[in-house]
């Protein structure tokens, strides 16, 4: 099975229908394990029990960037390879990415109030993630504003690739600027600085949320293919009536 085979929407619908129940089951199992481990993880010596917020904040923050990365690859698929499902993938991922980014901002803010003494600080990391959230909303608005899906796809693909410049800014903002946000503690040179009692639940939750994204994304892509099928059939119906 290659990407070319998946270029056929009917074949994609058939394959995704077989895979989705397994993905959903794996997501539920991993989320259950991750939530149990998060609940039973010890308190941090500095943060106390608020460290539990990290188990949902960090996976959502990672996914906010990962989803934009997926959309960027899909945008290349639209502009360079003209893959028929590339813009379907990009359009379907945007609302899910926006939701993860919203959760990263919200949970970060709820962690910041007791730990930093403020819900919000205009530092480089927080501001660049807020910009990412606004870019998600802008992209969704663009998709809705242009009626023809192929025209909307090209415009959205260009905007997505321009917006991808923000990803390294988010990642390295804590190194390039003096920020209130702490530097990387998991994905860093020299390995993680986290104790296993925090690292394992964090990684389990990260994999669980990633599986959740893949499941929701496949389901949303199926919906988008059906929406386009409805659109083309309605246009066919309208032309039959006009003839």
């Amino acid at each position, binding site marked *: 099975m290659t990407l070319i085979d998946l270029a056929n929407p*009917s074949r994609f*619908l*058939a394959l995704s*229908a077989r895979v989705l129940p397994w993905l959903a089951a794996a997501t539920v199992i991993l989320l259950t394990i991750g939530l149990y481990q998060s*609940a*039973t993880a010890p*308190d941090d010596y500095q943060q*106390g*029990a*608020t460290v*539990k*917020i990290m188990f*949902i*904040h960090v996976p*959502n923050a990672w996914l906010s960037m990962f989803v934009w990365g997926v959309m960027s690859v899909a945008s290349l698929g639209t502009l360079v390879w003209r893959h028929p499902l590339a813009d379907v993938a990009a359009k379907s991922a945007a*609302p*899910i990415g926006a*939701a993860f980014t*919203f*959760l990263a901002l*919200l*949970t970060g803010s*709820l*962690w910041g*109030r*007791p730990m930093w003494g403020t819900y919000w600080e205009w530092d480089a990391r927080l501001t660049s993630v807020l910009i990412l959230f606004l870019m998600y909303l802008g992209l969704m608005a663009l998709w809705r504003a242009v009626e023809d899906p192929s025209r909307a796809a090209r415009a959205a693909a260009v905007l997505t690739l321009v917006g991808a410049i923000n990803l390294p800014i988010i990642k390295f903002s804590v190194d390039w600027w003096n920020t209130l946000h702490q530097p990387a503690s998991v994905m860093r040179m020299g390995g993680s600085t986290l104790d296993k009692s925090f690292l394992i639940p964090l990684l389990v939750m990260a994999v669980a949320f990633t599986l*959740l994204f893949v499941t*929701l994304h496949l*389901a*949303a892509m*199926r*919906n988008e293919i*059906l*929406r386009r*099928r*409805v659109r083309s*059939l*309605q246009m*066919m*119906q309208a032309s*039959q009536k006009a003839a």
Partner: protein
Amino acid sequence: MSLGPYASFIVTSYAAAAIVVALLIGWVVLDYRNQTRRLRELDRSGITRRSGRSAVDTP
């Protein structure tokens, strides 16, 4: 399990995540139902795909 003096922040974070995930699942499920209903309506009105297959022929 004691959540200490900041329990409201922790509970709100998990509740917000649960609500947003539930909304995402609801959006996907309702959208699927909506699209398949529209395809069934088109099928009933005699509109078929160019391949000749039924509008509702969806794996």
